[in-house]
């Protein structure tokens, strides 16, 4: 998989950022082509770690906290931070997710960059009220007198081959129903670093889900400098003409394998990384579907009420007459995430490949 992932940064669609982000004057917002400059080969957790080093270095009002972050975190993302920046800025919190997020909102509301770690996305639910009723509405309800835009919540999400119910979930759809926050999921180390820096510096609260399966597995060249990738901009990472595939995070590597296999059967697939789930880039997906006439969405979360449903509905609204087949969804099953049945549950390569074929041959 690592070899496959190495190619991910080399997107083909030029990306233009729509507006500058706050407090990022020393950083550069780069386009995908520029990313081909050489960097250091590193895995995803190291890329996250580098982003956190950069933000603590460049912003004295940035704080990193959560359960077990001091010693480096259970996934090593915060390694070395406390030694470099001190325990006032990088610290353990009590084991209490609603406390972590509530604390982060208050810290951010005082003009700080509050970077909160939730140890697993499966454990984010105690903080749901703080995220949905508080962080998301903080600016709106005060008439822009107050905001907690400096808040970024990082949480590892997704299948990891042995995680069972409570170390595997993909809860992104819950948060995509909440105006006022942004939801961002990176697919690779280079993307993770650039997107995380953008999220932390974005003037809105962001939930940043990290594909924990890729923390060590995904390795690619990551520029050492301070760079940001634009939010709310999808990227066409593989061009094709017969069908559009949309996904995010770890699922993209599975989808790309399906695209490669489909190509052997003469089917040309276009693969899009959505990156930001809300507010999402409908235009890039629409443009692609207008070209291919077919759409397949794939995510690990259960299919019913998943974010794929939203993408499907939106694209049908916009491209109804252009569609040549029903929109396909290849997703997790409507069961809790199971341990020994994980290979059956997940939307694997051949499930996607079958759906590609049946959609193209509809």
């Amino acid at each position: 998989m690592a070899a496959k992932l190495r190619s991910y940064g080399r997107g083909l669609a030029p990306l233009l950022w729509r507006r500058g982000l706050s407090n990022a004057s020393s950083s550069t917002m780069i386009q995908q082509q520029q990313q081909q400059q050489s960097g250091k080969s590193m895995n995803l957790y190291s890329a996250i770690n580098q982003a956190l080093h950069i933000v603590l270095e460049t912003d004295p009002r940035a704080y990193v906290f959560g359960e077990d972050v001091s010693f480096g975190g259970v996934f090593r993302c915060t390694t070395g931070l406390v030694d470099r920046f001190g325990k006032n800025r990088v610290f353990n919190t009590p084991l209490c997710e609603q406390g972590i997020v509530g604390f982060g909102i208050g810290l951010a509301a005082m003009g700080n960059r509050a970077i909160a770690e939730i140890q697993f996305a499966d454990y984010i639910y105690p903080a749901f009220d703080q995220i949905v009723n508080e962080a998301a509405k903080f600016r709106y309800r005060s008439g822009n007198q107050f905001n907690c835009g400096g808040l970024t919540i990082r949480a590892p999400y997704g299948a990891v081959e042995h995680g069972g119910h409570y170390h595997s979930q993909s809860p992104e759809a819950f948060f995509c129903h909440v105006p006022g926050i942004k939801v961002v999921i990176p697919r690779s180390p280079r993307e993770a670093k650039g997107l995380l820096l953008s999220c932390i510096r974005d003037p809105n609260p962001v939930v940043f889900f990290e594909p924990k399966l890729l923390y060590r597995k995904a390795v690619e060249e990551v520029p050492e400098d301070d760079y940001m990738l634009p939010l709310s901009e999808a990227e066409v990472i593989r061009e094709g003409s017969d069908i559009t595939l949309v996904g995010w995070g770890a699922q993209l590597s599975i989808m790309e394998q399906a695209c490669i296999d489909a190509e052997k059967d003469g089917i040309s697939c276009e693969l899009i990384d959505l990156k930001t789930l809300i507010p999402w880039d409908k235009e890039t997906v629409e443009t692609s579907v207008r070209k291919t006439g077919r759409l397949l969405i794939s995510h690990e979360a259960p299919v019913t009420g998943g974010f794929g449903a939203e993408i499907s509905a939106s694209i049908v609204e916009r491209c109804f007459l252009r569609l040549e087949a029903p929109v396909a969804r290849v997703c997790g099953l409507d069961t809790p995430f199971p341990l020994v049945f994980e290979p059956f549950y997940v939307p694997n390569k051949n499930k996607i490949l079958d759906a590609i074929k049946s959609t193209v041959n509809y």
Partner: protein
Amino acid sequence: MKTRIMGFFGAVNQSCFGGDSYSYLCRSSVSSFCFNSSRTANQLDSLYVSDDDNNQALDFPGGKVTFSSQMRFISETGENRVPCYRVLDDNGEPIIGSNYEQLTKELAVKMYGNMVTLQMMDTIFYEAQRQGRISFYVTSLGEEAINIASAAALTPDDVVMPQYREPGVLLWRGFTLQEFANQCFGNKADYGKGRQMPIHYGSNKLNYFTVSSPIATQLPQAVGAAYSLKMDKKDACVVTYIGDGGTSEGDFHAALNFAAVMEAPVVFICRNNGWAISTHISEQFRSDGIVVKGQAYGIRSIRIDGNDALAVYCAIHAAREMAVSEQRPILVECLTYRVGHHSTSDDSTKYRPIEEIEYWKSARNPVNRYRKWVERNGWWSDEEDRELRSNVRKELLQVIQLAEKTDKHPVTELFADVYDAPPLNLQEQEKQLRETITRHPKDYPSSVPV
């Protein structure tokens, strides 16, 4: 120390004398306050007697733990209830021997004026709701002393994270009656742009975070804000309010624990008014109220008579001094009573006796009690009282009229501030809505400019 019955709370000791083990507050000035917290209401002393050799004590994080051959469970209650600090008796007379901070005439009279103003604003806004002019209202009746005296004990730099029954703090800080009315009417002068129900006030200028309806969510946020003040080495603390019902929420426990661990300068003020809508405190918790929960989290705490403005002033003043100078959280439980209904959507006579309400409204009225003390000092007269009430009443009627006549915010504000800038989906939805309004203008209120 003496004991008396305080309505529904059962027997609560009221402490006021220096010299006994409970006199840990309020000498004649802030600088000479004596905080002997190690002796604070420690009812577990007997359990701390060890019959084992101290050399064999268990070296455990947090300090040495001695052994005992006796299997003794800690009692679920103390022998006595934690006493309640107060300064003024029911007749507004300082209790002999009580130590409290001397207020200047100016401060004392201003506090009284604000308590009256708050009471009158509540009465008239409540009526305005009953007349259908505003959609909703919540009064602070019965809790005027906590509102005003706690606010008076703070500095303007202290950050307030309120619940929703503390508008008096805003009033004290200079929020005008017109500003209150503008929010309740949701007009274009409302800083919240008409997006929230009445009484969800907020003011950046006055360091008062905007009210949100969910209970206790502000508490862990207060800890984060206090941590920011701590990092910035500010001479200020965060003060956050909660009711008795709110202490059952997870956020209450999260906040107290975080505050203790982070050593955050935050003062938690719990208004224990006996009722969470219709749920009585006997159905809310079985502890001796809120004050005892502080020690379990390692937080210094005090119980005070929330209907005694002087006690509130002294205790909150001391609490914020400790919070700032020692960089630690403090918990203050104010015993009081919600004299009004929970809100205009509630009729509390359905679940509590009218006699109980009347008792607290008259015999234990915090404004009357405080007035007696101010009058006794020769600082206030009936004539001044009549004039104050007449002026406030006139102003209230004026501000309501003006707020009612003022337009709402334009429809574009529906879409602003969700994010720092409207994303494409909101731009698209605004465009669609405008087209709909053009087709069906009568579906929409004319008071909202398009």
